């Protein structure tokens, strides 16, 4: 990875006749071999010329249940390289997660699986996922929850964007035992971070043409903490008169979500309520296998499944639903500006979900992970070649 950082990125040329590729010395031979052997016939989405140089993309392997989008991206000739970093959740040293953080600082963008936290270990062993988020200051967790075609759910027409403060609140990991048997856990709310997340939420709402932002809180009980959060949201709302701002107490919110989720548009909230609300919403639209999530900071972005599950019980059985991770990688492509690739893959995923009905077990079907990915690849091929004019 040292070499990787220093090597210049040569422009990649794929022509109809065959090509020579400049290969960095350290790289995994497998990942480059296909570039040499594949011509435009076998790779229908091949580019004629790619001027900018390949985007480097970091992949963090936590305890991922499947990584089939890797193959899918190669199939679609997405101009992104993968740098794989393994993080073993069973190790107690923080070296591996620190390496991952360094690599993300280098590359700027990552696709991440959830790293299991053994909560029976002592408090010195912190959650690796949380460490990653706070080290990179990924202050906004964004989840777009939409009813997907072809998925049977109790509620229809759900379209909610959940924006969750991702670095403080109840996840500050500041705990102490005053006397034996009495434990205090601190929930920290700061004006700076509350203003920041509120500003992010309203900006997103405006960019995406949304009409309403709802702040979720428990300020009737936590008058100072959530009171400050609410106050900051109100201040930011004053600067966006075109967007309606209201607020709702978190217990009422969950009750409303299970009876009438269509009433919500954009929701902004502190960390723990975000955890609850995003899981409720993911359940409403079909489960953890369908919804992608994104963590944005000022300089970095990390994409993962919205509900951050490890799926340990179904690992290595070829029954996991790859949709959430694949859609997360589409979000990543959008972030990198590769919108055509993103929408190409996204359309193929949605078509597979709705038309071919190849659902995995979590959606009530009998499809395997590999069958779903194969089907998505077929849909991609049906779409025809991407020419350089379209890029």
């Amino acid at each position, binding site marked *: 990875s040292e070499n990787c950082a220093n090597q210049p990125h040569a422009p990649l040329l794929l022509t109809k006749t065959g090509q020579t590729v400049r290969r960095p010395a350290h790289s995994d031979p497998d990942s480059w071999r296909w570039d040499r052997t594949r011509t435009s016939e076998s790779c229908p989405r091949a580019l004629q010329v790619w001027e900018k140089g390949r985007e480097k993309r970091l992949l963090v392997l936590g305890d991922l249940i499947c990584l089939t989008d890797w193959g899918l991206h190669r199939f679609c000739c997405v101009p992104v390289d993968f740098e794989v970093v393994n993080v073993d959740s069973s190790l107690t040293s923080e070296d591996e997660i620190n390496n991952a953080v360094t690599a993300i600082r280098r590359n700027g963008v990552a696709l991440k699986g959830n790293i299991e*936290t053994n*909560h029976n*270990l*002592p*408090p010195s*062993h912190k*959650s690796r996922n*949380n460490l990653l988020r706070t080290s990179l200051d990924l202050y906004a967790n964004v989840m777009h929850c939409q009813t997907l075609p072809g998925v049977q759910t*109790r*509620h229809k027409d759900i379209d909610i964007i959940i924006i969750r403060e991702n670095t403080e609140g*109840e*996840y500050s*990991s500041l*705990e*102490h*035992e005053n006397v*034996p*048997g*009495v*434990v*205090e*856990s*601190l*929930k*920290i*709310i*700061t*004006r*700076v971070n509350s203003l920041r997340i509120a500003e992010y939420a309203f900006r997103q709402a405006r960019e995406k043409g949304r009409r309403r932002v709802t702040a979720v809180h*428990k300020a009737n*009980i*936590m*008058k*100072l*903490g*959530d009171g*400050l959060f609410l106050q900051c949201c109100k201040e930011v709302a004053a600067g966006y008169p075109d967007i309606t701002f209201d607020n709702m107490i*978190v*217990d*009422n919110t*969950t*009750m*409303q*979500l*299970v*009876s009438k989720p269509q009433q919500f548009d954009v929701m902004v909230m502190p960390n*723990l309520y975000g*955890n*609850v609300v*995003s*899981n*409720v919403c*993911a*359940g*409403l639209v079909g*489960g*953890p296998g369908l919804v992608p999530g994104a963590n944005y900071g000022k300089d970095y972005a990390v994409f993962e499944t919205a*509900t*951050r*599950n490890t799926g340990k019980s179904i690992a290595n059985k070829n029954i996991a639903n790859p949709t959430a991770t694949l859609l997360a990688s589409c979000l990543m492509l959008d972030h990198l500006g590769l919108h055509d690739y993103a929408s190409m893959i996204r359309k193929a995923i949605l078509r597979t979900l709705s038309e071919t009905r190849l659902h995995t077990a979590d959606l009530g079907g009998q499809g395997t992970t590999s069958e779903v990915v194969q089907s998505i690849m077929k849909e991609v091929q049906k779409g025809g070649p991407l020419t350089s004019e379209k890029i």
Partner: protein
Amino acid sequence: MSSMMILLVLKCLSQIIFYCICFAFQMQTVTIIPGDGIGPEISTSVIKIFEAAKVPIQWEERNVTAIKGPGGKWMIPPEAKESMDKSKIGLKGPLKTPIAAGHPSMNLLLRKTFDLYANVRPCVSIEGYKTPYTDVDLVTIRENTEGEYSGIEHVIVDGVVQSIKLITEEASRRIAEYAFEYARNNQRNSVTAVHKANIMRMSDGLFLRKCREVAENFKDVKFTEMYLDTVCLNMVQDPTQFDVLVMPNLYGDILSDLCAGLIGGLGVTPSGNIGANGVAIFESVHGTAPDIAGMDLANPTALLLSAVMMLRHMGLHGHAKKIETACFDTIRDKKVLTKDLGGNSKCSEFTAEICRRVQDLD
């Protein structure tokens, strides 16, 4: 012949004495706190239905407006406290907390006065009141005295606030014990502890440890642990997988309202608060609905089902079953329903219908 006659008379006498004693013991006093807004009318409904069902209860009505006691501390009126201490069982309607009244919420005052440490909410799908979720049958047991609602907050420096979540060994052990006892007494199969110990290692870790310790003494009840987010995720997809859930304050607040939403909302959800020293207060958890107060439009179902929960707590299972059946039958038939249940009958008509059914069931 005469000895046989004497024996017969003695037998009859003893039976009469036996029933008299039973009757005297069975007439229990219950403190009723009608509350504000629609509270008085729904309390009247419940009293009427209990009369129709011939429930052996004597009601003692009390008011709980906050008053300032000696030393400047806010407290509930001493008559109310005395009545509750004597009767041990209470039924409470919705109470309002005027904003900027200067005193803490009435519910909080009651909780502190009687050390109501467990909030119990059984959520059962009501046949006839359709929601997207069917076959819900679970109970949420929430620790009600500490956790995130300890009320300890500070402004550290301008713009930085800390709220303290307090978890103690004693409170965690107490709620875990109550949960397992409840499961055993109500023929429930499993208890699930809900936590976030991956993030809040020490606090939720302590809570979890106490639950595990108590579980050792209740081997007949299955014990599982689950993260709060996983519970939320699974709850909205398949609520039938849950039985009894035990958790700290905030998670309990969120989850109990989530479950109430699954079965139709706070208007049909019962709730009970268990305190130390055998005190138990059952209540409706909806608001005072001041916009419909006094107009005979309120739905007494929540308070009625809470009263049924109270009867079960008191051991009056026969009466509880009768009233519950009458209530559910009325809702299922859909002929006489209040506005929030989808009909256009008045509260008094709904009450009368339930009374009629109760008497028919006799």
